[in-house]
């Protein structure tokens, strides 16, 4: 008996839908969440290095100041700020607000704008960019 499973209708899946901002942001919330979970290792390593010794702390700062370290740190900052801003929107959704389709689209743009501004602001104030720092 021949198998006819490939004739069966398929339920809609990820590649069927047109890519829209709210959908991208939903995925980004998860990805940044995973990144932050892994990034918690870095936070603990930073605390341990500071408490352990001057050498360990200097080594940690050398790593964080290097090209890879700066890249990781920028990703860490972006992930933390995006996940927090997006998370606040999730908490608002939990109260039953901003759930109209139009509001989902407009709040998506607001989340992106706030994330970009706060991430850049954090790096300028933190002195991560040349000429910055307080």
């Amino acid at each position, binding site marked *: 008996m021949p198998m006819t499973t490939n004739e069966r209708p398929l339920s809609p899946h990820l590649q069927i839908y047109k890519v829209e901002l709210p959908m991208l942001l939903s995925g980004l919330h998860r990805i940044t969440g995973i990144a932050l979970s892994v990034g*918690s290792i870095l936070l603990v390593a930073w605390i341990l290095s500071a408490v352990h010794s001057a050498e360990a702390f200097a080594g940690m700062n050398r790593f964080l100041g290097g090209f890879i370290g700066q890249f990781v740190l920028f990703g860490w900052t972006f992930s933390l700020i995006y996940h927090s801003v997006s998370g606040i929107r*999730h908490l608002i959704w939990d109260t039953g607000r901003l759930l109209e389709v139009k509001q989902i689209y407009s709040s998506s743009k607001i989340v992106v704008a706030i994330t970009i501004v706060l991430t850049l602001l954090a790096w300028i104030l933190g002195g991560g960019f040349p000429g910055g720092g307080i």
Partner: protein
Amino acid sequence: MKYRNPLAIARGLGSAKDGLGHWWMQRLTSIALVPLVFWFVVSIIALAGQDRAHVLAWMNSPFHGVVLSLFLVTALYHANLGLQAVFEDYIQARWLQLVSRIAAGFAAVFLGFAGVFALLKLAFGG
């Protein structure tokens, strides 16, 4: 003819009754993390470029030491809940799902204890 009541087959296959606990703890940690993340980002900006003595003094102050511990533990708890959902969604094999959850849980507890122990050691000497 089957005499077995359909209910007998369905029993034990329903909700594990702990879904709300997961959902609620995720919201509770989220709410706690809003001010904690704000405090953390502001603190890190102020600490950027400072020497070790400055960083240690910050960690050693009763307020910042306690809040840093709270931030670390709350974030790890929240991360563990999030990772659990991710594993359940993307890992099909039950054994691998379980192994991942156990590994992530152990890692979170280890990181939390290591971080808090370091801060306590700093605070109480040794």
